Every structure is written in structure tokens, then in C-alpha cells.
């Protein structure tokens, strides 16, 4: 039985998982990209050469120079500094929205799958309904209703991703519920709460981690999309999305205004996607022996 062998040799499972994780070059690329972005998000604002809001109306839309490594925008603000500050907004949105979606998602998925019955049917129909909306359109509408600011952007992205976590966890728990060891635990008198959180919850952590990694990438893309449409984080706060929105008007004369933040978003999404793929393969217990 898989769970038993896993419990016997947790250290070996972990070692194998780490080995499988780093065995693929693309996964390593993902780790490098994600680490780079996390460092940028955490410390970027301290190494930014200029104040991201400082205008220099004499030097607007300059190409890259020694003073401004990536040039300046339409108000003479240093693009590199704005990108560095923007990375912390993107990272905040990514992490906060994933936490806000995954924790209730795991809880709801766990409870409805364990309880089953009418509760499960009703909740699943609600989740199906929410998932039918195109993600960006639902997020756009929520922000339009709540008002455009950072917190509401995070809420909107969390609401659109929440059903995915609940659905994923429900599927995992439905399968895990049937394992013999759950029956054994119940027969020795363990209560429902204990079974759910001590014994079923560990089964869902791996897929949730994978989903969370993909979710950070999605959230960064969605925040940029909302800001680009003018309903996300509002100027003058430097975010990658707002930079693209403004930069677009100068695409012909200064394509870098769009390309630089666009490239960072691309790197972020690619990094988190690769990380998610790597986690999926590394954490799959069925691969323990072959790995």
C-alpha cells in the first residue's frame, strides 16, 4: 500500500522527491526564475537607484543610458526603479490571493467531500457556476463593484481561484476517504474532525501546492491584466500592469515601456508554471520507487 510505504520511509520519499525535482533542467529554470522574482519582490525597492515616483520632465522617454539603465518613461521616471517597486506589488498579489483562495478552498473541499450528501451537491453546483465565468471577466466585475485598489484586486483574484482549490481537494478527499487506513482509524474511535484534519488533510497537500504554484503565476498575470484595463491598482503606484497600460500609448517611440514589464510578467508566469510542473512530478507518491 502506498501510504504505508510512504510513512515507513518518509526521509527516502523526501530525498527522492528532491532528486526528481531537480532532475529536470526546465524545473531548475523555474526555480531560478521564481527565486529571482522573490528576491526582486522582497529587496527590489531597496536597490532601486531612483525614487519610482520622481519625475524628470527634461529627460522623458529616453533610451537606456548609463544613468537610467532601462531608460525613462513619459514623465521621466526611471523605468528600472519602477519595475523593481512593481515586482513587490506583483508578489504581494500573487501570495496574498493564493493564500486567500487556497485556505478556504481546502477547508470547503475537505468538508463537503467528507460529509457528502446534499451539502456536497449544493456546494458543487455553486462552484460549477462560479467556474463557468471567464476568470478575468469575473475578476474585472468584482473589482468594478468593490472599487479599484490593491486589496480588492487580491479579493477578486482569490474569489475566481477559490473554486479550483475546493474542487481539487474534494476529488482527492473522495478518493482518500475510501482507503483502508481511514476505516481503521474510524474503527478505533477517532472523531470526524480528527479524521479530516489529521488523516485526510495530508493527502491533499501535494496537489494543493502544485495548484498554488500555478496560482501565483495566474494571479500575477491577472493583476497585470486588471491594472492594464485601468481597474486594478491605480496610478501613480508603480505596478507592471499600470506601466504597460501607460507605456502602450508610446509603443511606437519607446517599445521598452511595454516590453520590459511584459517580459518580467512572462518570466514570473513561466517560472511558477515550471515550478508547479516540477512539484507535480516530484510529489507524486506513485513515482517513489521508480524515482
Amino acid at each position, binding site marked *: 500500500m502506498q501510504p504505508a510505504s510512504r510513512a515507513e520511509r518518509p526521509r527516502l520519499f523526501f530525498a527522492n522527491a528532491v532528486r526528481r525535482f531537480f532532475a529536470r533542467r526546465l524545473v531548475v529554470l523555474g526555480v531560478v526564475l521564481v527565486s529571482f522574482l522573490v528576491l526582486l519582490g522582497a529587496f527590489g525597492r531597496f536597490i532601486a537607484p531612483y525614487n519610482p515616483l520622481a519625475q524628470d520632465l527634461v529627460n522623458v522617454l529616453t533610451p537606456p543610458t548609463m544613468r537610467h539603465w532601462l531608460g525613462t518613461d513619459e514623465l521621466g521616471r526611471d523605468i528600472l526603479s519602477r519595475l523593481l517597486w512593481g515586482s513587490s506589488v506583483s508578489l504581494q498579489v500573487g501570495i496574498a490571493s493564493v493564500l486567500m483562495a487556497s485556505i478556504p478552498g481546502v477547508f470547503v473541499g475537505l468538508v463537503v467531500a467528507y460529509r457528502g450528501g446534499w451539502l456536497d451537491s449544493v456546494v458543487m453546483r455553486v462552484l460549477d457556476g462560479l467556474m463557468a465565468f471567464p476568470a478575468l*471577466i469575473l475578476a*474585472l466585475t468584482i473589482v468594478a463593484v468593490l472599487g479599484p485598489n490593491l486589496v480588492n484586486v487580491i479579493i477578486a483574484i482569490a474569489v475566481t481561484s477559490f473554486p479550483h482549490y475546493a474542487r481539487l481537494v474534494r476529488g482527492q478527499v473522495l478518493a482518500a476517504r475510501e482507503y483502508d487506513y481511514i476505516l481503521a482509524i474510524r474503527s478505533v474511535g477517532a472523531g470526524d474532525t480528527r479524521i479530516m484534519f489529521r488523516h485526510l488533510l495530508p493527502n491533499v497537500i501535494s496537489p494543493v501546492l502544485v495548484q498554488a504554484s500555478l496560482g501565483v503565476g495566474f494571479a500575477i498575470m491577472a493583476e497585470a491584466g486588471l491594472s492594464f484595463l*485601468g481597474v486594478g491598482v491605480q496610478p501613480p503606484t508603480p505596478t507592471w500592469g499600470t506601466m504597460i497600460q501607460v507605456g502602450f500609448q508610446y509603443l511606437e517611440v519607446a*517599445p521598452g515601456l511595454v516590453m520590459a514589464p*511584459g517580459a518580467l510578467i512572462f518570466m514570473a508566469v513561466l517560472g511558477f508554471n515550471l515550478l508547479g510542473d516540477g512539484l507535480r512530478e516530484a510529489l507524486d507518491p506513485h513515482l517513489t520507487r521508480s524515482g
Partner: protein
Amino acid sequence: MARYIVGRLLAAIPVIFVIALTVFVLGRLLPGDPITFIVGTSQATYTPEQLAAIRHDYGLDQPIYVQFGVWLGKALTGDFGRSFQSRQPVLDIIVPRMLPTAQIAIQTWIFAVIIGIGAGVISATAPNSWKDWLGTLTALFGAAIPFFLTASLLMFAFALRLHWLPASGYVPIYQDPLGSLRSTLLPSLTLCLGLAAVLTRQTRSGLIDVLRQPYVTTARAKGLREHLVLSRHALKNALLPVLTIMGFQLGNIFGGAVITETIFAIPGLGRLMVDSVTGREYLVLQALVLLAGTSVVLANIVVDLLYGVLDPRIRLRHG
């Protein structure tokens, strides 16, 4: 077969009900009096009697569940209220915007199928070769590149530098089919990249699985040429899951339309949605969100039905 169709349609009803309820609740979440939702911010220009009449007309003086019923009943007959700025019925604003979005969506699908399935087949028939590696890498990049980056790269290269295609605007297909294609080519290419990436991955893994099956070996053993093995036997089975993806991805195309139509100034539904957010045309927005959610559900039903027609296991079981 008839039972299968009816079963699918019945299963969609609660989902569509949840969609409608969500849209209704979102409308009520707007801060302040729900009447703002109907008359916009121009409340001051109405007399109290007029406001009371509107309130009564929309059932706002009734309990909330009655309001939902009234709203849903009107929505089902296509009555989404009137724009508070132009006083035009919302439906009359939406309908003319459908053509560009639908045209771009269909073109996107065609391009994505050609690119995605083509790349998937090439990858699967030569696994671990440089072609496979290139296909996989392109699919990874295609899935991660944001629409606005693709759109600006394409616009910069083909419109602003090479001047091959227009940078913005839309020519209706019934006026000038070729000009229409030119005006929608860049938005379609932008949207198709992500879809093609998903299709490549699915086609590749599906086809690799199918090619390992005994019936493919049999087909090869009796001397069938490889391209016939692929087209007659393997692809049919490998492409069934691809159909499901096409249904699911309709939502992404809608989401992407919001961004590409803004970038390329296409007067479609996506652009209308952004305009209705910035212009606080909440009734238009409400109708559009309802439309987007419902059409995704309907697209998935169509896909399920096609599945039933194409897959004999489903067709025969439900006889």
C-alpha cells in the same frame, strides 16, 4: 441518445441558475442604493416620484427573492434594462458588438487547432527529438506569455514597423472580407497562442498514449503506411479529449477578448465590457457577465453532445 441530450441539458439548469444568482448578487454588492445600478450616478437629476416609479418598475420595493425572480424573468426574455446614458435597451447595445468578438473567436480556434494539433502530432511522432523539444518549449512559452506582451510585439512588428497590417480598428466581414481578416488577424494570433499551447500538450500526450495501444501495432503490422495509421486510427482517439479543452477554453478566449479588443480598438463585447466598467454602465456589465457565463456552459454542453456523437462508448450506452 435523446436521454443523454436531455440529461445534459437538465444538469446545466442549476449551474445557469447559480450564474444568474451570482450576477444578481454582484449587482447588489454595489455600495449604496441598488437604484444607482439602474440610473447610474445621475440620481440627483431624477425627482423622488421618478425614482419611486423606477424602483417599482424594477421591483426594488419588493423582498429580495422576488426581485431576483423579476430580474431573472426579464433577463430570460432578453430584457436587461436600459443604458442610463443613452436610454437604449441594453440588448440593442450588445447585439451589434457580437460580430467582431465571434469572428475573432472563431479565427482564434481555427489558428489554434492548426498550430496546436500540428505541433502536437509532430512532437508525438518523434518523441524526445529536437522537434519534440522545440514543440514542448514553445508550448511552455505560449502558455506563460501574457496577452498584452504578445499583442504589443505583434503590433510593433507587423503594424508599426512593417506596416503589413492595421494596428487598430475593425472592418466588418460583410463589407470587405479580406480587409476584415486583415483587421482581425493580429488579435486572433494573440489569442491563439495560449490555446495552441494547451492543444499541443494535450495532442502530444494523448497521441503518445494511443500510439502505444495494440490496435495501432496491428494497423502497422498489416502494412498500413504511417500517415494512414495516424490519420485513420490514432488521431481520432487522441483528439477526443482535445474537444473538451476547446469547450473549457472558450472562457479564456472571452477573457482575452477584453484585453485584445482594448489594445487593437476592436468594437466587440470585450471592449464594451471595459467601457461599461469605466462608464459605470452596470446594467450593460451585468448582461455581459451573464452572457459570458451562460455561453461557456452552453459551449460545454455542445462539446458533451459532440462527444456523445463521436465516441461510440457514450453513444451506444445511452442508446
